[in-house]
């Protein structure tokens, strides 16, 4: 029996008074990769930010348990210490703070104990190598002047160093050319262990050619419409979101409106 990692029940979330998630149910076990797909504006990033505890995303109802613990009252740093990780769609820059300082402090914070310099260095170098990144990269300021691809790699680099139990990857494929996409995906695959649960949030199917999910969920208007296996992603690739939206009583026009939102 697989060990349950994350259990979401009836989650509703509002941003600045506007309700975005309308009751999401999802269960993720260790060792599983789940893809959450949906058109723009369907609530994918809201789900990611709410799970990590962003103060702007207000949980109005529902329950989120991580390793059995209700985490909704916990600050983001405590959630990270419990083993949650979010790879941001748009990582923010922290001028004047080098990646190496930031990573070391984050590693210490997550482990809640000092990390020997040598151990940190070895881990950093190994992860940089895995992601085909130059050692000099660690001397740059956090996300400052990074290209789109560098930002996404830097997120996966952090995932590798912090070694979480649950990794939520929010549109980690967006803005990447095919080579960068492959490198990032290979990195994620190499970091995947039987203890890790992964949530892949993506708009397109192409990432799923490289990272194979066992489960695919369609999120639309703040609800999971349908869940299935990897074949569902292929169907979406071929037919788009419209047929499935129509099946649940929505109209293709709605999907188009969602695209613009």
């Amino acid at each position: 029996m697989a060990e349950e990692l994350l259990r979401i029940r009836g989650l509703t979330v509002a941003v600045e008074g506007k309700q975005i998630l309308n009751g999401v149910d999802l269960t993720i076990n260790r060792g599983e990769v789940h893809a959450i797909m949906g058109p723009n504006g369907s609530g994918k990033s809201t789900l990611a930010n709410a799970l990590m505890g962003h103060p702007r995303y207000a949980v109005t109802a529902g329950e989120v348990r991580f390793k059995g613990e209700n985490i909704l009252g916990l600050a983001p740093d405590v959630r990270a210490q419990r083993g949650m990780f979010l790879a941001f769609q748009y990582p923010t820059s922290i001028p004047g703070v080098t990646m190496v300082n930031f990573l070391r402090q984050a590693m210490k914070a997550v482990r809640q104990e000092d990390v020997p310099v040598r151990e940190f260095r070895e881990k950093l170098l190994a992860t940089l190598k895995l992601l085909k990144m130059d050692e000099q990269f660690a001397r740059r300021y956090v996300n400052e002047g990074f290209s789109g691809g560098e930002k996404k790699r830097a997120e996966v680099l952090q995932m590798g160093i912090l070694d979480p139990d649950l990794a939520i990857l929010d549109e980690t494929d967006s803005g990447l050319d095919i080579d960068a996409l492959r490198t990032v995906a290979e990195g994620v695959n190499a970091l995947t262990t039987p203890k890790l649960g992964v949530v892949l949030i993506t708009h397109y199917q192409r990432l799923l050619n490289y990272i194979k999910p066992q489960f695919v969920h369609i999120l639309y208007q703040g609800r999971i419409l349908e869940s299935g296996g990897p074949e569902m992603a292929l169907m979406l690739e071929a037919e788009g979101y419209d047929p499935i939206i129509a099946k649940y009583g929505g109209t293709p026009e709605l999907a188009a409106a969602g695209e613009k939102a």
Partner: protein
Amino acid sequence: MVTKITPEIAEKDGYKFGFNDNARATYKYRTEKGLSEAIVREISQVKNEPQWMTDFRVKSYHHFLEKPMPTGFWGGSIQNYALDFNDIYYYARASDRPEQEWSDVPEYIKDTFEKLGIPEAERQSLIAGVGAQYDSEVVYHSIREDLEKLGVIFVDTDTAVRDYPEIVRKYFGTIVPPADNKFAALNSAVWSGGSFVYVPAGVKVDIPLQAYFRINKENMGQFERTLIVAEEGSYVHYVEGCTAPTYSTDSLHSAVVEIVVQKGARVRYTTIQNWSTNVYNLVTKRAVAYEDAVMEWVDGNLGSRLTMKYPSVYLMGPRAHGEVLSLAMASDGQHQDAGAKMVHVAPDTTSTIISKSVSRGTGRTSYRGALRVEQGALHSKATVRCDALLLDEKSRSDTYPLMEINEDQVNIGHEASVSKVGEDQLFYLQSRGITEVEATKMIVNGFVEPIVKELPMEYAVELNRLIELQMEGAVG
């Protein structure tokens, strides 16, 4: 409005230099409270000064009386404070002369400076020479022997007036004339202590000279006078640090610093000012740079109630370069009114001003800067960059840039930004396990990094620590 800063508040704010040693302090000599021509003459007499200096003081005293309090552009803040010139002791000395052996310094003063980490730095050979001033007088001065042999002079200014009258008379009061402003006039009338540095042509002083200024007495005024002369092709880095005990009444620090950078020479002057929050810090700092000379001010202002300080460089010779890196941090009840002034007189001169300020709580920072390009300063180039960081809703920052360009063929750049510690930045760091307090410190330390990296190592470490102390209790 005058805010009284009590010791309790200061301690809560993490000011670790607030102790005093009054129980043991004995003053060999002290003038009465307040100021008069008689007191000015008395100071000169006690110091056994030559007639020209007595005359200089008395003349300056009359300038002080005639000059109004600064108003308008350069005096934008002082009106809001009830600074009482008659509630200040203008001169007090605890020892008869500067000692050259640390062991000869009175025990209680030694304890004070030991607590401040001096002369630990000297023992570790991190500095080439050290001066320590306690209230009005310099109590300790020393310089590495090899530098002395090369002709480098590093003494307190009183000693310089006595022992090197030719050089002192040539420059003293020429860069900052007594009539320049009310506080320069005040300093010129009652000055005491400060450093005199002379670097002969071609001599490069490889590690910094350091001075340390400590106000100990309540209601004390400290008026040090520093003069640095760097001859052709020489180099020197002078570093000063300042602290004071925390009292419920005010003290006044009003220094004058004059610097002459001759052809091809380079001077760097670094200040870490961390006065307690009952000190008015009103300082005039000015340098002249001749042909191919480089003058750099690195100015860190953390403490004091009100600081008004605008280090300036007059670029007098072709290709001279001036630079000001200014860092200001204002917490509750503090106002840091700091900036820079650059005057391009000669062609092909260049200047850079980088100002970074952080405000939190009711703290306020102002950047006040002037950039003047005189006619004939062809092809000169100037860059000004001011960045302000606000830590909360209450804190405040203003920018007052003044530009006067009297020449066409010049290249001027000015950029300014004000940012708040953003929710997204905090969330990003917190999502990596870092607490909100640590995350805020990280963002602030990152913000000031471009200035901090210019400091000598031990000062950089100290400054980061001071910032962290100020940040404790800032959030959460």
